[in-house]
């Protein structure tokens, strides 16, 4: 009897999987961080196309890569992730070339964000939001007129500075301040940045990757090196209306997020439709306003609300020559980065 029950159970399982397979044509599985699209954008896409969107989250780029490696690029139809990891995805053959004839809004992409290191010919990706590292501060509590990274070292800021918890970004900006590349693999240069970084330690009160804006607004810290989205969230909060935001003069660190279709996606057609839909100006504007990242869509810029415009579109006089993206470096160089970062963190307490 038990055996019969278990056989029946197994069969039910099998059939339920088979059932899943059948309806896949009308399904689009998106794999990205939480909170990348406002609900109404997804709802409207579903209404317009009759495709059901299944939204699955990862928490870090590295987890995403691991999942793609194990599923051999199937299971998901569209992935949105950071620049440096996309480079790895493409080099491992886990992404497929986009069929641009299916993307009628392709020209809307802002050319500044095209031809980046991770996809030089723009064959695999469409950018979806970009961020520039900035310094946000409360001028009521800070007496320094902050212009760049060097001002973060000011003695008057003891115990009042927060930085994001990403070692490559923070150390990278120090490298820029010293006139080196963020992506240098020269050990001496990285170590020099490490020594400089340690000088910043007395001023550090907080090292955290997420929601630095909350601590800025609560007054636990008064100055912070933040991601673009955190700057936007600070500025749009009631308490943050008088805050100042600085694009550091020594050079900028920025990042681009990209959409790509995994190599064995079951429904790449729906993925192309979705990309096309997101590239529409109005839709794009509501997405960027929701995420708080810089618009990568020229057609979207004019639909962005004026109060957000200075945060979500690139300043016209922006000197992109001095801007750099964190890229993958050799394992040995990464080890040195890890070591100096640990030393920095330890000297903060």
């Amino acid at each position, binding site marked *: 009897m038990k055996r019969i029950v278990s056989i029946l159970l197994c069969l039910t399982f099998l059939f339920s999987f088979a059932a899943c397979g059948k309806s896949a044509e009308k399904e689009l599985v998106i794999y990205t961080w939480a909170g990348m699209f406002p609900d109404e954008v997804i709802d409207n896409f579903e209404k317009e196309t009759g495709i059901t969107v299944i939204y699955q989250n990862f928490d*870090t780029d*590295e987890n995403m890569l691991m999942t793609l490696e194990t599923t051999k690029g199937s299971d998901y139809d569209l992935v949105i992730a950071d620049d440096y990891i996309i480079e790895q995805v493409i080099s491992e053959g886990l992404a497929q070339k986009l069929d641009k004839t299916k993307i009628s809004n392709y020209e809307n992409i802002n050319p500044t964000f095209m031809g980046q290191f991770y996809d030089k010919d723009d064959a695999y990706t469409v950018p979806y939001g970009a961020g520039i590292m900035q310094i946000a501060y409360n001028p009521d509590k800070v007496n320094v007129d902050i212009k760049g990274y060097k001002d973060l070292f000011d003695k008057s800021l003891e115990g009042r500075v*927060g930085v994001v*918890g990403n*070692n490559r970004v923070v150390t990278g900006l120090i490298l820029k301040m010293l006139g080196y590349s963020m992506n240098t693999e020269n050990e001496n240069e990285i170590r020099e940045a490490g020594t400089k970084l340690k000088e910043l330690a007395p001023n*550090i*009160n*907080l*090292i*955290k990757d997420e929601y630095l804006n909350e601590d800025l607004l*609560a007054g*636990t810290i008064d100055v912070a090196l933040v991601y673009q989205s955190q700057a936007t969230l600070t500025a749009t909060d009631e308490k943050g209306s008088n805050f100042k935001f600085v694009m550091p003069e020594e050079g900028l660190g920025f990042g681009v997020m990209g959409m790509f279709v995994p190599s064995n996606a079951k429904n790449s057609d729906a993925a192309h439709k979705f990309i096309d839909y997101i590239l529409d100006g109005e839709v794009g504007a509501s997405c960027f306003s929701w995420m708080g990242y810089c618009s990568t869509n020229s057609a979207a810029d004019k639909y962005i609300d004026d109060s957000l415009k200075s945060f979500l579109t690139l300043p016209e006089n922006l000197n992109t020559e001095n801007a750099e993206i964190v890229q993958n470096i*050799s*394992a*040995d160089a*990464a*080890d040195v*980065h*890890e*070591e100096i*970062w*640990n*030393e920095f*963190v*330890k000297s*903060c*307490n």
Partner: protein
Amino acid sequence: MKSRMKSDFKKVLPLYLFTAFFVIIPIAYAFFLSFMTRTNTFSVEYVFTLDNYKELLKPIYLTTFWDSFKLAIVVTTINIVVGYPAGLFMAKLPERQRKFFFAALTFPFWINSIVRIASIIILLRTYTTILYSYFAVVITMVYALMPFMIYSVYSAGVKLDRSALEAARMLGASEIRAFLDITLPLTAKGLLSGVTLTFVPSMCLIYISNLLGGGKFILAGNLIENQLIKTHNTPLAAAISVVLMMLTGLVILICNRLEPVARRRRRAK
């Protein structure tokens, strides 16, 4: 008899399988990985090396282990000082009140620990200036681990033979003497299991040190996390885990040794 053993074996088979799959194999794999070489493309090459352990002799790793150890000692000591009397006190109470205290200790566990810690952050941020300090990390860890100490001591305390205590007092032993000769040896097992339950996790409760310490305090657990997620040096992460396991194993071993010592003291009298 034979068939009985066979059927017993069948009953515990799931347990064996579970232990094999989720405890023995992962630990063996971590041990194996810790002797492998990391390639420059972030993957693992199966070539034997001791470099990972040599790397751990660098001051940054040694001091981190020592810092985690110190934090664990501070947290455990506070837990003993506060939790041991509290557990004994609870055990002495009449049953109704005992149940009440027991429930009061259990209720917070119905709320996810991350949520509780988020509320502590809000409280500290609003009413104090200690958020993102060592002190904040210590008190939150004590808070998170205290119930384990109280429960362990309590369960030993309930079994304590009160008549032995009464006899000792009647025969003229001072209160302190009675405590040292009877209560302490008889509840030592509970106390030591409480120590194990608080000491071992406090070396690795990285989410507490990250959230309450503002990311400024690195514990051994952070080293593992960083090596795995940021630097992708799996063999080194495995080596750190192995050393950490040996350290905690040592603590458990010492606790187990101390228990008979405490008991013998009673018999010698």
